[in-house]
């Protein structure tokens, strides 16, 4: 089965968190639609969704993943709040990996309108958001990680596991890797246990794969945006 995810990024101006007044905010929201599995109807997909969104925020929690300071408009008052909304349409294994790829691709594509801050005579500030669709800034995404999950099947570890492989596995290790090869997050899921030695091996493999994956993704997205093609829906 395929894994299909759709990611949308929306930017809003909002107040910063009081602990970090000069940094923008990033919020992940994952929705497992009933299209993917009837079990997800209503609130049925919430557990899975929560797991994915927490894994994403963990992977992005390192301060240098995404330059949140550049999203600051008026320190302490107005910052850009990026909503990253993930829609899961079909799950056929390696969901987290696919989601992280889609998130990175969506962030690469995100355009933030230029903002000018004018100070009025009384000393208060006025924010002016440009409505020119070409007067926009792109996000710096070179340090945004992709997640590589290695799944233990028997005594072997596999990447990009299918649903069947995941079903008969007892442990998964998800590693968030940036293009330069640094790891921003590691999390182990599943009921089984992993040996420390094999974890070291996994980390090394994940790093190699992650670097490659990041490069491939960037190339693919660049190609996609350079070619003007007849767009007939995003499922074709």
């Amino acid at each position, binding site marked *: *089965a*395929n894994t*299909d995810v*759709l990611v*949308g*990024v*929306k930017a*809003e101006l909002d107040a910063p968190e009081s602990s970090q007044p000069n940094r923008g905010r990033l919020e992940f*929201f994952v*929705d497992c*639609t*009933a*299209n*993917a*599995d*009837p079990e997800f*109807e*209503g609130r049925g997909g919430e557990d899975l969704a929560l797991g994915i969104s927490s894994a994403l925020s963990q992977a992005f929690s390192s301060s240098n993943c995404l330059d949140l300071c550049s999203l600051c408009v008026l320190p302490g008052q107005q910052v850009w709040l990026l*909503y990253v*909304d993930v*829609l899961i*349409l*079909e799950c*056929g294994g390696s969901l987290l990996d696919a989601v992280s790829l889609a998130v990175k691709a969506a962030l690469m594509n995100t355009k933030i309108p230029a903002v000018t801050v004018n100070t009025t005579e009384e000393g208060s500030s006025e924010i002016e958001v440009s409505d020119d669709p070409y007067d926009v800034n792109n996000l710096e995404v070179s340090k945004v990680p992709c997640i590589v999950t290695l799944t233990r099947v028997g005594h072997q570890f596999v990447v990009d596991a299918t649903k069947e492989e995941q079903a008969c596995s007892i442990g998964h290790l998800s590693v968030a890797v940036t293009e330069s090869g640094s790891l921003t997050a590691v999390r182990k899921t599943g009921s089984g246990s992993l040996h420390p030695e094999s974890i070291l091996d996994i980390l090394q493999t994940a790093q190699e794969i992650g670097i490659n994956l990041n490069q491939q993704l960037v190339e693919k997205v660049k190609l996609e945006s350079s070619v003007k093609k007849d767009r*007939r*829906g995003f*499922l*074709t």
Partner: protein
Amino acid sequence: MAGLELLSDQGFRLDGRRPHELRKIECRMGVFAQADGSAYIEQGNTKVLAAVYGPHEMRGSKSRGLHHKVLINCQYSMATFSTGERKRRPRGDRKSQEMTLHLKQTFEAAIMTQLYPRSQIDIFVEVLQADGGNYSTCVNAATLALVDAGIPLKDYVCACTTGFVNDTPMVDISFVEESLGGPQLTVAVLPKSEQIVLLEMASRLHVDYLNKVLKTAVKGCKDVYVILDEVVRNHVAQIASSVGSE
């Protein structure tokens, strides 16, 4: 009305259409493998995915099962990024619940429910991008998905939302046309037998105009039908050729 001219003196709408013209409709059937039937449809910028599961054994509380016919279970949800302003929740709000109920009632009229007693059919629609006429697009998508799933239908269900500006009915209105107020009439019809299965009107309209608007809306539904019909025929032929018909 507001500063925007919804209908120019030459009789063109904001997006250049004539009042009776539909937006461009493109669709695909069978987009997902895991569902029994699925479809993706674009009506202008309104994009909707529909998946159908079933008929299968009752899921969840068994007591909801009906002894004489199949239970139709619908869910209408909108992606949080589908609207201009971000939605907080994809479903569960009043509007979605109302849509869910409408969908259920619409398709109870079209599906041959008596064939599958004590079973359940799920229809899930997901609005990926909302640009007016969400409900009608969802109905059209769900029809295609049901046909793809091979669920016996009395007829297609085609829906169309119609507005009314300057004494002129306008079919398949977009978000801008919707949001500037004015009456809106949503109809879903079984085009072959010309039965109306859903009729909903918002805002105020003089009763003398109702017939005119309704007629235009039904005409719009029939135009939709022609498009869906072609898609289904192509799809059937394609399946047969890929399976290698007997």
